[in-house]
């Protein structure tokens, strides 16, 4: 087996979750790489969508912006932001990926600010952009992130995008569409899902080279554990070759 870095592993694992014929709204960077990899491996008809309006482009290179020309290169449609968001709201978008500075045990994500005074943030981030919309309206939300105890915390400073809110049924009671929510959190150490009842984050498998203790020590809240914890299947030679040679030959993302 080849050597690989954590970013390569996360992208490969994410790609395995994107089946042929599904729709996915992605941002720039790792989610876009995962979607391109899935297309080239097992999901040629994965429909990649960008929030500025690009639908099903044949990406000639990694976009710098979710609205740049690459996102409409030989696309099926160059549409609009309301078109993409309304397609999500109508229930036609299966997957999306989010990033953020903090995530809690219910998969709620902060990409807005650090501090307690909204009017004068200690550290300001870009805000929701389309993140809240996609987390609210796509069927399944995934996240790829390096894991540490500061980022995975029970007390996020600001809930930008909804996970399962306070757990249980609270997401749907708040009015968010039924059946939507966080699906997989893919870290450098493990793959997590969410408990069916409590909606609390649950470890499904541990990545090669890490132990159960590492995963818990690098998380600010108690994790649940699936009954049978396997080892995450490492990237295959095929996955790595296509990722390195075709998806990200300049190592913009996998070189990070």
């Amino acid at each position, binding site marked *: 087996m080849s050597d690989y870095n954590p970013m390569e592993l996360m992208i490969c694992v994410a790609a395995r979750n994107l089946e042929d014929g599904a729709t996915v709204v992605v*941002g*720039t*960077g790792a989610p876009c790489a995962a979607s391109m990899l899935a297309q080239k491996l097992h999901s040629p008809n994965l429909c990649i969508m*960008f*929030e*500025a*309006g*690009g639908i099903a482009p044949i990406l*000639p290179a990694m*976009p*710098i*912006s*979710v*609205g*740049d*020309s690459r*996102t*409409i290169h030989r696309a099926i449609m*160059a*549409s*609009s*932001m*309301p078109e993409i*968001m309304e397609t*999500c*709201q109508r229930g036609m978008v299966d997957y999306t990926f989010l990033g953020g500075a903090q995530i809690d045990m219910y998969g*709620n994500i902060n990409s*807005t600010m650090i501090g307690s005074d*909204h*009017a*004068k*943030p*200690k*550290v*300001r*981030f*870009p*805000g*929701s*952009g*389309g*993140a*809240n*919309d996609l987390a*609210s*309206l796509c069927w399944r939300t995934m996240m790829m992130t390096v894991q540490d105890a500061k980022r995975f915390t029970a007390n996020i400073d*600001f*809930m*930008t*995008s*909804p996970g399962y*809110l306070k757990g249980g049924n*609270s*997401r749907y009671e*708040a*009015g*968010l*569409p039924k059946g939507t929510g966080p699906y997989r959190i893919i870290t450098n150490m493990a793959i997590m899902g969410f408990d069916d009842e409590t909606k609390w984050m649950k470890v499904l498998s541990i990545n090669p080279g890490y132990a159960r203790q590492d995963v818990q020590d690098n998380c600010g809240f108690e994790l649940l554990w699936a009954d049978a914890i396997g080892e995450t299947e490492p990237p295959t030679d095929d996955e790595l070759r296509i990722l390195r040679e075709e998806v990200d030959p300049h190592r*913009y993302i996998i070189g990070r």
Partner: protein
Amino acid sequence: MSVELQEKGRELKSGINEIFTDPDADRARAFFRNKSRALKPKLSTVEEVVKTMIRDGDYIAIGGFGANRIPTAIVHEIVRQRKKNLGFAGHTSTHDFQVLSAGECFNRCDIAYIIGLEARGLSPNARRYIESGKVKLTEWTNATLSWRIKAAAMGLSFMPARNILGTDTFKYSGAKEIECPFTGQKYAAFPALYPDFAAIHVHECDIYGNCHLYGSSVSDQDLAKASKRVVITAERIIPNDEIRRNPEATFIPFWCVDAVIEMPYGSYPGNMPYEYFSDEEHLKEWLRVEKDPDDLKRFLDRQIYGTKNFYEYLELNGGIEKMKKLRAIELLTNGK
């Protein structure tokens, strides 16, 4: 302050932050009643448009997507004429937000996405500006602002939707929860957003303001309808015959538009689909000089305050030779 209603035993929540614009549909109609529908030539200049169409304190919106198909000349001129106390729709804003932050032109902002330039990183100066507390902030999202603009484009006062419920984004917005009168479903209601002024960059436009636009349109069709005063900058002015030959392609009609300016390479240093790619070196330079406020001041003096207009700025940054390179990158004809 949060106003919480009690209705049918269910608590309906409200966002606590300010709504910076008037969502009232009748007052909007009263304005649009007097907006000219005349098919008349509207050619103007950047200097004139910014001088006469934007007053200090106005609420403005910028079309495109941050560093894609943006009306850079107008954004620069707002800084050059030192417009102040503007309200700003931080909707898909990136480089435009960065430039207006450098000029400290606005003091209130509806936020969907600010400070960042997507994969390029965060603007150090825009971040300082927002963290300083000088700008009043109300949180929204990309879809939310799209739909607020769409509500205005439809001549309504609000739009219901199913996002942001239950989050801090809702809490720090100006949204309200409502119940569907037909199903009882809980929705977030977003107030219509009627900007005082919008600038949109397009590929082609005739002298009356009929526009062709290619590539992702973001929210610009709704923005042209929703805004009280609209300026179009265009890569090319085309004859009205070209509009009439292919009326399906008319993306924005003349009656939305108050002024038209021909502005080749007008989205520079941003990307213009099918025309030229973004100038990543120059955008990196912006991010680099912003680390030090003195460097930024010198940079702005040279690039914006010290240039007479957008053409001088283009020349300063490589002129037609640079544009040829960016065109080759866009068209994938650069041999790479």
